[in-house]
């Protein structure tokens, strides 16, 4: 059985985790580190200490804005942004329930829109997200949604894309290839 640090290092984006020297530039740079359960630097230390469940059930990586500031500042090329994505993938694929963030639900709505339409249908994404989280919260979005709609920026019906069928077949085949390994 792989250790947790090996598992992260084998996930796209997590390859450079062993290079970290715990300098903390990532945490000092991150615009949302204070919202996270554990800081970016702390998460890396925890991964190397084998704290698998604590890391994968934490909300930290789901706060990542993908601003890549830590990535350009890291003196060791660790790429903490991509590591956050790697941790999100592991947590998602292994069914970890995360408290204190609705971001996973939003991402799932987003991806299901891509799979269903071939392209992102923003209205459908938001509709599904509010339906699966808190339908009442959709009321808060009404003013912005209406403004976007009135400025012709929120089509209610997704555009028909020919490639949609291709995309489904492609994803299905890829799943089979990965499943057979």
């Amino acid at each position, binding site marked *: 059985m792989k250790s947790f640090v090996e598992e992260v290092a084998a996930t796209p984006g997590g390859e450079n985790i062993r290079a970290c020297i715990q300098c903390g530039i990532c945490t000092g740079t991150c615009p949302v580190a204070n919202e996270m359960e554990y800081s970016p630097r702390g998460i890396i230390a925890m991964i190397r200490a084998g704290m698998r469940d604590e890391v994968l059930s934490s909300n930290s990586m789901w706060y990542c804005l993908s601003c890549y500031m830590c990535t350009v500042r890291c003196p060791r090329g660790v790429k903490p942004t991509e590591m956050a994505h790697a941790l999100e993938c592991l947590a998602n694929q292994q069914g970890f329930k995360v408290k204190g963030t609705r971001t996973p639900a939003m991402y799932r709505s987003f991806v299901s829109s891509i799979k269903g339409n071939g392209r992102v*249908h923003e209205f459908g994404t938001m509709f599904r997200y509010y339906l699966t989280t808190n339908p009442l919260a959709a009321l808060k979005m009404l003013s912005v949604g209406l403004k976007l709609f009135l400025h012709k920026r929120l089509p209610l019906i997704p555009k028909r894309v020919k490639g949609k069928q291709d995309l489904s077949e492609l994803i299905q085949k890829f799943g089979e290839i990965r499943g057979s390994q």
Partner: protein
Amino acid sequence: MKYYSYFPGCSSEATAKGLGLSVQAIAKPLDMELMELEDWTCCGSTPYGSLDEREAILVAARNLALAEKTGLDLVTPCPSCFVTLYGANLHLKQHPQLMGEVNEALAVINLDYHGKVRVRQLIEVLFRDVTPEVIASKVKRPLNGLKVAPYYGCQMVRPDYGFDDPESPQSLDILVNNLGGEAVPYPLKNRCCGGSLIIPEEGLALSLIRKLLENAVENGAQCITTPCPLCQMNLDAYQGKVNSKFKTNYNLPVLFTSQLIGIALGIDPASLGLNTNIVSPSKVLDYISKVKQGVNSGT
């Protein structure tokens, strides 16, 4: 005329309609032929890569394979699509095993990919292929000193894929100045607007947006310009929410850089999708025309 394979990105058809329209409008006058990639699908996207990175790379690869057949550079106006497509391309080239699996899957839809596509973002193409000097030579309606806060956001300059400085970028400043505008100092020019967390973590994103608006206004900006669909939506469509939450009174137009270029090229507002901007850009247009007529010496 230079030819490119063109990847608009999903938002260019919806929440960033002004981006899609204005890019199409400025292409011909700048001698670019943007040939829309036939039957493109989502770039792969950051949220997809946060749930299943390998599958997101596969989704990107379909577009890369389509582009490879054209033999042209793949250009996108969306910095997020750029980072996704560029990153997937790089990852595939560095990981032959994944490239093999992706190709095995692509074969089902009669495509294959060999890693030959060059993925580029529109601002880089405007800067390196078209050049700011040539753009300046085509300006018909100079911005006449319009004070513009150049907002780069994140993914236009990070991770560092070799165009502009990730900490202190200059390309938009130079473009604005070449249009006859004045790029104001904007210390937060490359800081995050909150991105897609505006939906699940609205309060957090609104506080980031507020800082960006405040920083632009205190430096005298009459408008903000950005090439990024998500930054534009957050700063434009959520400006009202910032005002209610923080008891502020911002009324700052946020124009796509391609819209600002289009104005300077003398293209009509409708073709640039200026009617889709939520904070009306009319005061920007008024200012430019008044200065031109010599009625106003600038404020």
